[in-house]
């Protein structure tokens, strides 16, 4: 019985097959409309979520399955102090597969060890969020036709952003990638991420503070939120905050086929005016997430694989 807690739980070949499956679902949705007939997905979200939760639930419904759910930590036995282990042991009795988000880091691994059905990590605190990375990968492949020879810019909070670490780690497994890491000094990619994913594999990367100076080199621009509370002092925040807001003006210097991504929610780091630009891919990214979750549910339930 297989769970997915970390994007590294899936080999590059498995990722390719999941993307192929997602493409097939997009092309032939009717073929999958009954694929999960009589199967139940339990969504256990012990932390607020809009996109991920709805995306999982929509995915299961589109596969012809059903969803049982807990509306939040307050509504579950967790509020009475029940352990993650006991919760998933119980839920395993009712559901065929579990998607879980939990505020504690490592909670998904504990769930996977105790559940008797597959567990998908839908985010464990600031730790891992593998299905976001699945959405990112499919978006890049669909927009760019593959992963070879791409220059990927990651911009904003690269220190605390779990999606960024996970994406770097996943992309570093493909040939010919180049990274441009754009962040304030305080929010640079942690050295252990660079060491594991980039240096060990001799993947070229540069670190800069200014987005405008490098935007013209990029094939992918992955924006993230720069939160004020991450800065050590207000002065630095005020000095740098505008440089990490993507505007139509800044996009003038970018390639015509740039793909702008964001894990969402955005607060103000991408101007709403950018939404009209054909290079804005972040809403497509959300939709791709649903298809990848469908592919992953099918894989973990050993259906159509």
């Amino acid at each position, binding site marked *: 019985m297989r769970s997915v807690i970390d994007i590294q739980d899936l080999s590059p070949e498995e990722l390719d097959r999941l993307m192929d499956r997602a493409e097939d679902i997009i092309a032939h949705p009717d073929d999958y409309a009954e694929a999960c007939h009589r199967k139940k997905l339990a969504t256990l979200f012990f932390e607020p979520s809009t996109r991920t939760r709805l995306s999982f639930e929509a995915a299961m419904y589109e596969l012809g399955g059903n969803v049982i759910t807990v509306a939040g930590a307050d509504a579950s036995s967790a509020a009475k102090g029940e352990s993650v*282990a006991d919760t998933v042991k119980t839920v395993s009795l009712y559901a065929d597969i579990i998607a879980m988000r939990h505020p*504690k880091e490592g*909670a998904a*691994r*504990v769930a996977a060890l105790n559940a008797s059905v597959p567990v998908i990590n839908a985010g*464990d*605190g*600031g*730790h891992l969020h593998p299905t976001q990375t699945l959405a990112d990968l499919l978006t890049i492949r669909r927009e760019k036709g593959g992963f070879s020879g791409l220059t990927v810019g990651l911009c904003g909070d690269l220190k605390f952003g779990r999606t960024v670490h996970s994406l770097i780690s996943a992309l570093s497994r493909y040939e010919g990638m180049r990274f441009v890491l754009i962040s304030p000094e305080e929010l640079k990619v942690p050295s252990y991420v660079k060491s594991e994913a980039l240096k060990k594999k001799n993947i070229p990367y540069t670190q800069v503070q200014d987005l405008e100076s490098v935007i013209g080199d990029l094939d992918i621009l992955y924006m993230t939120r720069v939160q004020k509370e991450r800065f050590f002092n207000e002065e630095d925040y005020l000095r740098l905050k505008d440089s990490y807001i993507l505007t139509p003006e800044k996009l003038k210097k970018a390639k015509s086929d740039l793909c702008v991504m964001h894990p969402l929610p955005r607060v103000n780091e991408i101007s709403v005016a950018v939404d009209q630009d054909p290079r804005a891919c972040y809403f497509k990214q959300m939709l791709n997430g649903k298809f990848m979750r469908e592919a992953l549910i099918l894989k973990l339930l050993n259906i159509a694989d």
Partner: protein
Amino acid sequence: MTVDSIQNGIVIDHIAAGCGMKIYELLGLGTAGAPVAIMMNVTSGKMGRKDIIKIDGEIPLNLDAIGFVDPGATVNVIRDGELKEKKRIGMPERLENVIRCKNPRCISTTEQELPQVFLLTDREKKEYRCAWCETKAAGL
């Protein structure tokens, strides 16, 4: 300075100078119930200076805790005044309930009876990470 030899017990030897107290604490020897002698900065032919812990009586020891603090330490089991067993510890791949995760957001801080597990992630740097949240173990 001399400490009486023991008839039945355990001698943890070749501890790097300064690490003896940490091993004593991690093994919980203060509450183990057996008489314990710690010798620190003892002259050693091979090491220059070393620490030694003598435990009067055979008590269960978490060898991983010793290996975590000092992989070079040795554990000698003494029975009837004679050396019966000598173990080289080395660096353990996995630590269970030796150290605690310092990350307040780690599931191990709240989950009932979840063991504190750390895995060796970089042998050269002697780096351990929490098996649950992957936070790096704090240095000794």
